[in-house]
Structure formats: structure tokens, C-alpha cells
């Protein structure tokens, strides 16, 4: 438990440092860090978007997500974009993509190649196709999972369930 707490504190520390910097350092995370983030969602609604630079429908929905993130900047909603790009493509593909598209949102690279070991931990409804999005309420009492693309209005409908 204390390890989890430590991990979480560590996560918060480096995440807050990410937010301050203008360039885009992308942190590589393991599934445990993502799950503890989900479990410690206390004061914000958490929107987790699973994507990759090689995934065409992911790239297509990204602008809608970023617009929503900006529109909800004053609301207790946090957006995290979990990239499933291979770790070896971090500097060659992911970072150039973020730079080119001027994406300053929080992007993490999820380095967990044994997909079967963790997909069900995000949602048992997830077959593994991306994009996939999960919206988690403030106290992690409920969540909405969606496999496939979402446009702005569809995303808004889901988030509205959790913020008045």
C-alpha cells in the first residue's frame, strides 16, 4: 500500500513538472501507475484516452478531445492521453507528432507489451481496439468505457454525466 502511495506521489510529482514545461517530455509509464492514478482520482473527473500515432481514427478524434479539454479548462476534469506507441518510437514518432501538432496536453507512453495481462483491468468490455476512452468519476464509483471513436458531442454527453 505504501509502495502504491509512493508511486502515486511520484506520479503526481513528475506529472506536475510535465505541465509546467513548454516542450513535450513524454513519460513512460507502467500499467500500475495508470491504475493507481485511476484509483486516486479524488477531486477531478479523469478522461483517459488510449491512442497511438499509427492509429488513424485516433488521430482523427484527437482534435475534438483537445478542444473539449480546453473548453473545460475551468472544470474539475483532467485529460490524460495514453499512447500505445512502441517505446522505441518515442523520440522518432511520438514526440515529433506532438511537436508538429502543438499538443501540450498530458501524454504518457504506456509501455506494457503483454496486452492480455492488463486490458481487462481497464475494462472487461474492451476487446483491444483503439481508440478507446474511459471516463472515471471523482470518487471512482463509476466509469464509462467506450471502444471506438468519439466526436465532440459524444464525448460531451459522457463527461456531462459526471460534472453538473
Amino acid at each position, binding site marked *: 500500500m505504501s509502495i502504491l502511495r509512493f508511486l502515486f506521489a511520484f506520479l503526481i510529482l513528475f506529472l506536475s513538472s510535465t505541465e509546467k514545461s513548454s516542450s513535450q517530455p513524454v513519460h513512460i509509464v507502467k500499467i500500475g501507475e495508470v491504475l493507481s492514478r485511476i484509483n486516486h482520482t479524488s477531486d477531478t473527473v479523469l478522461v483517459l484516452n*488510449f491512442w497511438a500515432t*499509427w*492509429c*488513424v*481514427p485516433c488521430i482523427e478524434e484527437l482534435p475534438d478531445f483537445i478542444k473539449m479539454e480546453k473548453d473545460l479548462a475551468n472544470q474539475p476534469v483532467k485529460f490524460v492521453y495514453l499512447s*500505445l506507441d*512502441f*517505446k*522505441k518510437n518515442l523520440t522518432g514518432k511520438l514526440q515529433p507528432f506532438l511537436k508538429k501538432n502543438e499538443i501540450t496536453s498530458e501524454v504518457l507512453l504506456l509501455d506494457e*507489451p*503483454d*496486452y*492480455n*495481462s492488463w*486490458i*481487462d483491468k481497464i475494462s472487461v468490455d*474492451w*476487446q*483491444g*481496439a*483503439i*481508440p478507446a476512452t474511459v471516463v472515471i468519476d471523482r470518487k471512482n464509483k463509476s466509469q464509462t468505457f*467506450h*471502444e*471506438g471513436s468519439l*466526436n465532440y*458531442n*459524444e464525448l*460531451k*454527453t*459522457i463527461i*456531462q454525466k459526471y460534472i453538473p
Partner: protein
Amino acid sequence: MKKFSIYALLSLLVIATSSFILNTTDAGYKVGDVAGDFKLTNIDGKKVSLNDYPEAKGVILVFTCNHCPFSVAYEDRIIGLHNKYVSKGYPVVAINSNDAKAYPDDSFENMVVRAKDKAFPFRYLHDESQEIARNYGATRTPHVYVLNKEKESWVVRYIGAIDDNTDSPAEVTKKYVETAVNELLEGKPVSTSFTKAIGCSIKWKK
């Protein structure tokens, strides 16, 4: 405000409809189900069905495509599976179900090119109507169904990933498909009969 609730209602409808569509595809086959036959065009222009494999003990059916980097990452391993198991009675049959309008790379013409470039030793079939992917419940590429011939029926004995490391074949620790086929060859039940994996979603026609 009124306008927004109409939009909200509309998007709810869209989500409800799309999840209904997803559910119908999710339905698909489960391990233990009898798989239906198909008649699809191979890259040589000939129609192919499961009945064209009278000598086979089963078939390693792989829903894949040209454009998806995860499919590309597995191409050599899919060729390897065919070469290893065709003589043992389990040939690979690859099926591309993607909407070629969304992904021109996945058109029939480009399937022919890809198969030639990579010298695919197995048949590569075009599921143009997407009916077979929907029937089977394939949602991503690559998505494998190991079929075992039991009393003239093709029974689904494994659904899922090829192995546990897409990026690096050298770091694979669990060869799911190989293990399943080996167990079938030994007459044993398949120990891991269902796995999930990240993949490109199969693009459905609008």
C-alpha cells in the same frame, strides 16, 4: 440551453446506436462455437471456403490487413505459423475485412501487391462485405481464430492474439497460437483459449 439538450439527446442516440452495432459484433463466436463457412475471393481471383481444406485438421484464421502497423509487425510471424503448421494439418488462412474506402491500402488490388511482395505462402481472402468479420466477432487486426475440425464441423478452439509481444519477437514469452495448435495436435484441451490484444480497429463501412 435547449439547443444543447437536443444535441445531447442526438449524441446519446448516436452512442446508443453505435454501442448497439458494437454489441452485435462483440457477439460473434465464443470458444467452443461451431464456425460458419464462407466463400471469399483469394488474391488469385478464386473463391475459397473452408470446404476447400478437406485434408486439414483445422485452420488458423487470421483477420489482418495491409495498412495496420500491428498487422505488419506480425506478417513474418504469420508466415512462420503457416510454414510450421501447414504440414501438420493447420494452414493459415488470412482475411482482410477492412473498408477500402477508409483505408485504400487495404483494397483488393493492394492485397495482391502485398501478398506478392511478402510471398505469402497462405491464402489471403477479401471479406469485401465484412460479413465474415461480423459473424466471427473480429474487432481488430490481427485477430486470430483457431478452428478445429471435429466431426465435420469447424469448432472455434482459440480466439485472440498471436503472442504476447507485438513489437519484439525476441521478447515473446507466450506463443498463444502455437501453444493452442500444439495442444490440439496432442488431443489436449487448449489451456489458454482466449486472449486480448491492442490492435487496429476493423473499419466498418458506413
